[in-house]
């Protein structure tokens, strides 16, 4: 994923399908989408900030394992913080919180940090690019979670702290609870990618 000449940055999830695995499996509510998206953004941005200075200190052959260990440590630290903030949401995100270490966004940040080229055609910093993608990922994860929950369950769970996150119910029944399953996640994402293509093409840009 890279920035075009007109400054347009394609959405990493809808155009590049970056880090879609957990979005399909566990982003079943707004709260889960926000907590997971924040974690992915935190890991990617922290890696983007920490890895380049390490290059001067660590030997070349040790850089890859140390970068991966650092990514794992960051994911684990975030998982602990998420557990303290909301044990319920951390438990519902399950093994996907430690897996933030190898999410598409984190691995993308690691690859970008290890490449010698500067990010973007106009020489913008790598960290800037990682930040933009991370924020887009967070917003998309929250949107997908909210959409699945609203259409699937007719409710919206807010990412509030504590054992019981605040839940707003719109209707008493679950209209399309199938959307909360992984198969529903795949199908919804397919329709969202198609909608994204239509919107981007209508704006006169390339979708990917």
């Amino acid at each position, binding site marked *: 994923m890279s920035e075009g000449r007109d400054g347009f940055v394609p959405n990493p999830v809808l155009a590049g399908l970056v880090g879609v695995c957990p979005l399909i499996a566990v982003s079943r509510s707004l709260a889960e989408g926000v907590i997971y998206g924040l974690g992915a953004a935190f890991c990617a941005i922290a890696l983007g900030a920490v890895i380049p200075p390490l290059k001067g200190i660590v030997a070349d052959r040790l850089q890859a394992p140390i970068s991966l260990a650092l990514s794992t440590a960051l994911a684990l630290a975030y998982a602990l913080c998420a557990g303290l903030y909301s044990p319920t949401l951390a438990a519902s995100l399950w093994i996907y919180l*430690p897996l933030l270490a190898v999410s598409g966004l984190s691995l993308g940040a690691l690859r970008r940090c290890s490449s010698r080229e500067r990010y973007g055609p106009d020489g913008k910093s790598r960290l800037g690019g990682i930040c933009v993608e991370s924020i887009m990922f967070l917003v998309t994860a929250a949107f997908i979670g909210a959409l699945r929950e609203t259409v699937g369950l007719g409710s919206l769970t807010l990412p509030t702290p504590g054992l019981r996150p605040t839940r707003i119910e719109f209707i008493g029944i679950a209209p399309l609870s199938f959307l909360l399953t992984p198969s529903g996640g795949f199908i919804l994402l*397919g329709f969202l990618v198609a909608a994204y293509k239509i919107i981007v093409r209508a704006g006169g840009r390339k979708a990917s």
Partner: protein
Amino acid sequence: MSYLGIVVGTAFASNALLSYGFGSVPGNKAEGGGAFASAIALACVNALASAFLWGVHNIFLGPLGLGSLDIVFFSLLAVPLLKFLSRAAAEGESQGLLARVGAEADDLVVGSLVFGIALLVSRGAYSLPEALVASLVSGLGYWLATVLLGALRSRLELSDLPAPFKGSPAMLISAGLMALAFMGLDAAFVKSLAG
């Protein structure tokens, strides 16, 4: 659960790609002549990684109450070891199956598929032999799903789809429908079948 239950459950109802979403984008990679090598690589890498993480989690860190740190040890010790083994296999034989398996395994080691299956298996209530079987079959289940989706992709490319649905949207929707079919073999059904 019996071994048959583990095999059917992990290959279908809890398929690594279609139930957990592990691995790359569905149907993204065309499966060609290297399909057999990739199946062996998937099974071997997942089994080795899961056995290592199971040992670290259940024997060393679990009794100390530090089980959640297992993934740090995994990335520090197991990933370089698996990389070394796969590169040794890739370089040992220039054209043979082992070299292709090694090359496939090298690409796999750092990814959500291997990490995810290893975490699932090590933190599940499995004994070591059950964990090995579950991880082997998970790898093969993932391979089966990618092969099926690869075949679907090649047919979808020839079909007359609306332009916005061509490519990844059609694949994602197909993967969703396939996941729905795989869900049919759920845990309760397998339990009644296999005991």
